[in-house]
Each structure stands twice: as C-alpha cells, then as structure tokens.
C-alpha cells in the first residue's frame, strides 16, 4: 500500500513546490510595468521638468488599481533609474471631481500610462497633456497611430510596441534610438 500512502501525501501538498506562474492579467501588467521602466531609462526630458537632480520620475497610471499596483511593484523592484526613484500614482477619470484632480496629476508627470481598462479616457488624457513634455504610453491598440507616443501591442503571447517619433519630437522629448529601433513606427496623419 506504500505507493498509495505516497500518492495521498503528494495529492495534498498545499504549498506547491513548483514555480507558480501568476495569473495572466497580473503577468501582463508586470511585463508592461517593466516596459515603462525601460522607457524611463532611455528617454531624456528637458531638465526643467525636474525640480532637483534627485527629484523622482513621476509615473501616472490611468486605469485599474491592479494596474497601478503592478507598475508600482516593478518600479520598486527596479530601484533607482539614472539616480532617480520612480514615483507611481494612479489617476482616475471616473467622476467629474476625479477628472479635475486628474488634470493636475497628469500635467505633473513625466510618463503617463493609460491602461486598457481606461480606454474610454484615452482622448481626454491626450487632450490634457498635449504639447507638454510628457511621454504618453498605452496598451490600447492603435494608440501610436492616433496621437499617442508609445503603444504596447500583444502578439502571440508576447509584447512589442509601436512608436510615433513625430509626436515624441513635438513634445520636446528625446527617446533613445536603442528604443526606437525596436519599435514599429507609426504616426498620426498630419
């Protein structure tokens, strides 16, 4: 009967001893967060966007709390980027009161990330930050072809991204060629 005793024991192992994968959504958000960290690393903002040499990068996430938490977790794990911390906060566009507050949060950011659950707010966000040196990123299809700067796209279980170099240039930002060469280039019709 010993094989049965062994099997019974194994069947009840509560702490699974295998490297468990997080759920698909959590995984996706974490990888997107890692992309954002890389965009921070390889983008130059005009120096006056930082109050001091130690002022943090400010990332504002428009979307679900899960998305904001995932991005914050990855940013924390990344540590300092070019000597600066990364501050992650969430802006909600749900109510009129939220939108008023969001406007300030967004304008004070270096990078704004619109996550797919907030896709209805994309245009409103782009209106708020237009003309400012703020890097706009989203994981909504078609973002880089309709006013956004960097759009994350999923293809066969992997993420890639699209870029609109003209929009980046118009905002006064400089994104490293290392990044742009990995992107699929798009551009809004002018």
């Amino acid at each position: 009967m010993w094989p049965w005793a062994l099997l019974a024991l194994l069947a009840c192992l509560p702490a699974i001893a295998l490297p468990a994968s997080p759920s698909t959504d959590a995984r996706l958000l974490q990888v997107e967060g890692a992309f954002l960290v890389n965009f921070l690393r390889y983008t130059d903002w005009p120096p006056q966007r930082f109050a001091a040499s130690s002022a943090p990068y400010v990332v504002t996430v428009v979307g679900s709390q899960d998305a904001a938490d995932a991005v914050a977790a990855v940013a924390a794990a990344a540590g300092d980027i070019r000597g600066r911390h990364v501050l992650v906060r969430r802006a909600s566009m749900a109510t009129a009161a939220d939108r008023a507050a969001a406007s300030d949060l967004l304008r004070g950011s270096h990078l704004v990330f619109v996550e797919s659950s907030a896709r209805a707010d994309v245009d409103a966000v782009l209106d708020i930050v237009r003309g400012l040196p703020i890097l706009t990123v989203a994981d909504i299809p078609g973002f880089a072809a309709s006013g956004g700067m960097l759009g994350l796209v999923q293809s066969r279980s992997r993420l890639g991204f699209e870029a609109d170099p003209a929009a980046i240039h118009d905002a006064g930002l400089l994104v490293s060629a290392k990044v742009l060469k990995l992107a699929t280039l798009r551009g809004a019709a002018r």
Partner: protein
Amino acid sequence: MKHWGWAIGAALLLLAAMGKAGAFEADAGADTDLSRLANMSLEDLMKTRVTTVSGRPSSRISTPAAVTVLTAEDIRRSGARNVAEALRLVPGMFVGRVNSSSWVVGARGLTGSSLTATRYLVLIDGRLVYDPLVSTTFWDTADTVLSDIDRIEVIRGPGATLWGANAMNGVISIITKRASDTVGSLVELGVGNDGERQAVMRYGAAKDENTAWRVWAKYADHGDFENAAGASIGDEWSSVRAGFRYDGVFTPTTDFTLQGDVYNEPKAMETVLLPVPGQDRQFQWQTTNDTVRGGNLLFRIRHGYNEPRGWFLRTYYDQTQRDTSRFGVSRRTADVEYRRWLDWGDRNNLIWGLQYDWTHDDIASGPVLLFDPSARSWTSINAFVQNTTELVDDTLFAMVGTKFTDHSFVGFQTQPSVRVWWTPTPTQTLWAAVSRPVRVPSRFEENGELVFAYVDTGAIAGGPPSGVIVPLGLSGTESLRPEKLLAYELGHRLQVGNGWVFDTSLFYNDYRTLVGVPPGIFGTFNSDASGVTYGLEFTASAQLTDRWRMEGSWSRLVTRIDGPVLKFDETNTPRTLAQLHSYLDIGADVEVNASAYYVSRIPGLGIDPYTRADLGLTWRPRDGLALSVTGQNLLHAQHREVTGAEIPRSVFAQAAFAFGH
C-alpha cells in the same frame, strides 16, 4: 506497457514533489521574478511570455481530442426528451433503442448488448451513472430535466487520464446549469401519440450571481412498443424524478454546490421469456412490473476556478434499486475525489488528483441471472497526474499523463496517455494521441451466471431423462484479467471562412485483452479474446446565413475479434453512421429543425439499414411561451434498431411556459 505508465507517473510525481529547498518556493520566486523583470533589457522583455497555458482561452479548434460538445441549444433543437435520445447527435455514436425503456449507446464499436459491457463511461456532474453490475448504463435512470443541462461533453476515444478505468472507448459527461442560470419558474407539458406524456416543473431563485438554488420535478410516461407481428411487447413505463441544486460561495474564490435527486418508476413493465428452473427446457412468458428507484446526493467545493492554481473536492452518495424478473440488485456507492491544478514555469499546467470509490451491492438472483456471492463490496482507488506543456509558443503542445488504479477485482493498473497537438494557425489543429486504457470486468463477468435454459443431463445427451436438472449458461469467473487497449488516434480540425468547420478523427484500437465468451456460448467468460477496431469520423458544420446552420457527419467502423471466442462484436454494430441536421430560424419567433440519420445494417442482430428523419417546429408567440411539435422516425411507420422491438413513427407536442426571471 506497465513500465511506461510507471515512468510517466513517477516523473510527473517527482516534479510535483520537488522540495521547498532551492529556488522553487512560490513566494520567494515571485520576488526574484519581479526584480529580474524590472532589470531586463527591452530585447529580453519582448521575448517574455505574457500568457500562461491555462490562461489562454481554449478554443474548440485547438482541442486535442475527438470531442463533441452538445450545447443546451443543440439538445433543445434535437427534440429529444431524454439524455439517451439526445446522444444521437454525436458523430459516430451508435444509439440503438432496445425497447421503450432501454438503449445501447456507444461509439467505436464493442457496444455489446443489454447485458454485456459497453465500454463508455457516463457521468452526470461527475457522478458515475454507469453501472458496474454489467458494465453498462441504464438509460431510463440516467436522466434529468433536459432544460437544466448546460452541455453534454462526449469524448470519443479513451477519456483523457482524468477519468477512471472503464472510460475505454469514451466518456459522456453531462453537466447541468448553475442554479443562477435557471432562475424563475418553468413548466413544460408535452404529449405524444403512442401514449407518451411528459411534465416538467422547475423553480429557481438567486440571491446574487453566486448564490442560487432550484428545485425541479419531471414526470414521463411511455407507451409500449410492438413487435413485427403487431403484438405489444409489454414494455410500457413511467418515471417520476425530483431534485434540487444549491450553489453558494464560502469566499469570493471558493464556491460550492449541493445537489441531489430521487427517482422512482411507478410503472416499469417487462415481458420476457424465462426458463423454468427444475424443468427440462421449459420456458414461460412472464410479465412483471419492475421496481426501479434510487436517489443521490452530491457536494462539490472548488477553489480558484479559472485561476492558474486551485483545487476541487467532490463527494457523493448514490443508492439504486432495480428488481426485474431476471434479477434484483440494490447498490450503494460512496465516492470522494480531490483534485489540484497549477500553472508552473510559464509553459506548463499540471493537474493531479486522488479518488476513492466504494460500492456495495445486494443481489437477489432470479431464474436467469444468478450471482455468487450475492452480496459484494469493493473499492477502487484512483490517482492521476497530467501535465500539459507549451513546447512552441501558441503552436505546439504536449500532454502527458497517467492514471493509477487499484481495484478490488484486478489489483493495480496504470493507464498512461500521451497527446500532442499542433496549431499552426488559429484556425487549424492537428493532433495525435496514444493511450492505454483499461476496463475492469463487471460484477456479472466476475460472479454472475446467465442461464439460457435448464436441462436434464440425460435428455440433453440424447438418452433417457436422468432426473438431474442443471442450468446451461454462461458463467463469470474471478480469474478474468482486465481488458487492455492500446489506442492510437489522429485528428484534424479546420475552420474555413466565417462559418465552416471540418473535423476529422481517425482511430486504431488494438485491444490486447478482451473479455470473451466461449464459441458455443455455454461455459465461462475468459480473457482469451483480443481484437482490433479502426475507423474514422468526419464532421462538417456551417453557419450558412445568420439564421441557418447545418451540420453533418459520417463515420465508418471496422471490427475484428481474434481468439477462441464467440465473435458477436464483429457484427453487432453498424459499420457506417451518417447524419445531417438543418437548424433554421424564421423571423424572431419560429424555428424549423430537421434531422436525418442513417444507420447501416447490423448483420449480427438481423437489423436492416434504415434512415430516420425528424422534423421539429417551435413557435414563440410571446416572451416566455414556446410551443413545439416534433415528429420523429417520419420515414417509416416503424423500424427496428437493435432487437425485435419496432420503433414507431411518433409526434410529440410540447408547451413550455417560463416566467418570473
């Protein structure tokens, strides 16, 4: 064969048991994972997977098995009033109506007859309704309210490792709807020619999406069938069935279900020719009102459904009693099953579990069927483990698994299975599988004796009567070995354009050991038979317009039995089956559903080929009311399917009222 089962099982269990030492601790893993991710280069990030094996939605196209899913809609449009009849829709499935209350159901041959084994496992919500007494399913009791069925999943071919021994040729799994999907009141009343009547009542209520319950009752009355000479065969029957289901949650991620039902057949007439014990070759007709009743209770709790990791526990108790003129049996069964699943390593999904089944029967022997011992309890313990790996992103997958069974009748058995599938595009799949399932002999094959006649030992030898009367029959033996099958399957599925789907399955079944009957039929069951079946099933379905869908299938089967045995299985099943269905919606309120079935000759049973045509019309004059008329077997006034009973042309009209939802 035993060895590769062991090897697979051991390898998988080793994986599952790898210790807490090292980098495999779940939480620590998550942290190093994030840190690694945060410091990865863009190039590496672009190579990182964002979906998991079980996280991706599984599509019909990519299922690596010969699976047919009958949806609630398919069942409704078929006009079937019980589960056995609904199974006619499955490609390659032979459904032969034996008489008013029993059917032979099975695909890929070796479907036996009403007393011998059919090698198909049948489950309702995970509860076994396949009876181990004669290894078959009594379809008059394997039934429920059809409107409460969410879907019937039929796997032709050895059930993937998840199901137990005896899922040799396939599995029929009937899954009922969640209580939150059956809220409100439903009343169905139907009447047909030939004395068929049916009434269904159901009431359900929901507190919210997760907490709901329903109660239901079904009454069905069936008239008798006739033989070719026009005489009644005395098989009229009726059944009453009532049950309930309660769904609830303990935590947001842990849900549970409690369900049960009881049934009784107030009328279960049977007229059979029985040998008279103690008299030399005397037979007499006997008409009895059989007793058929039972009940069951099932509890299931599930954590992390649709999550990458979770567990599941199910337990049930089932009691049945069936007293016929040939024998009487009462059975009690208790079953517990525990299962866990886990996504691991980005590319793998592991499922494993343990099941304990106990059953006890008490048999009152009759003049035709004797059992020694007349009461017996036995257990079977099953453990299974199965791992699915994504070998090449989105395109190549492999599933390896095995089941270990320890059954009182045959001891320790392994049932390994390997499956590979390739989906080069989202619209096409090619799959292949090799499995080695096992069937445990039935209680009848172990301990039964089927008496064909009582004879005088002297008279039967041609001399003067000796006065000693003995039974002449077929006996079971406990020395039978389990049946073993090596099954090879190949399949292809293709979606073309917007609505066409083509599905092909080929199989080659090498039955290494089969339970056989001596060539002269008298004697003892033996394990000297072996055999081969092979064939193919082809299905095409098309959504021709918004409102018109058609489905058709064609299947072919070749059976060969070897060994010093009676080869009835070679000629007991039709070689060719075909069906064509048309489902048409006219306007928003009317449905026209037409079906045609072709069954080729069954030489061993003297059945001629026949084509059966059904036509159903449903009209919904207003919300909550559906009126339908279904005509079945319209082409022939009557025809035979398996035995001498003539299945008549029939018309059935039904009104369904739904309100309060």
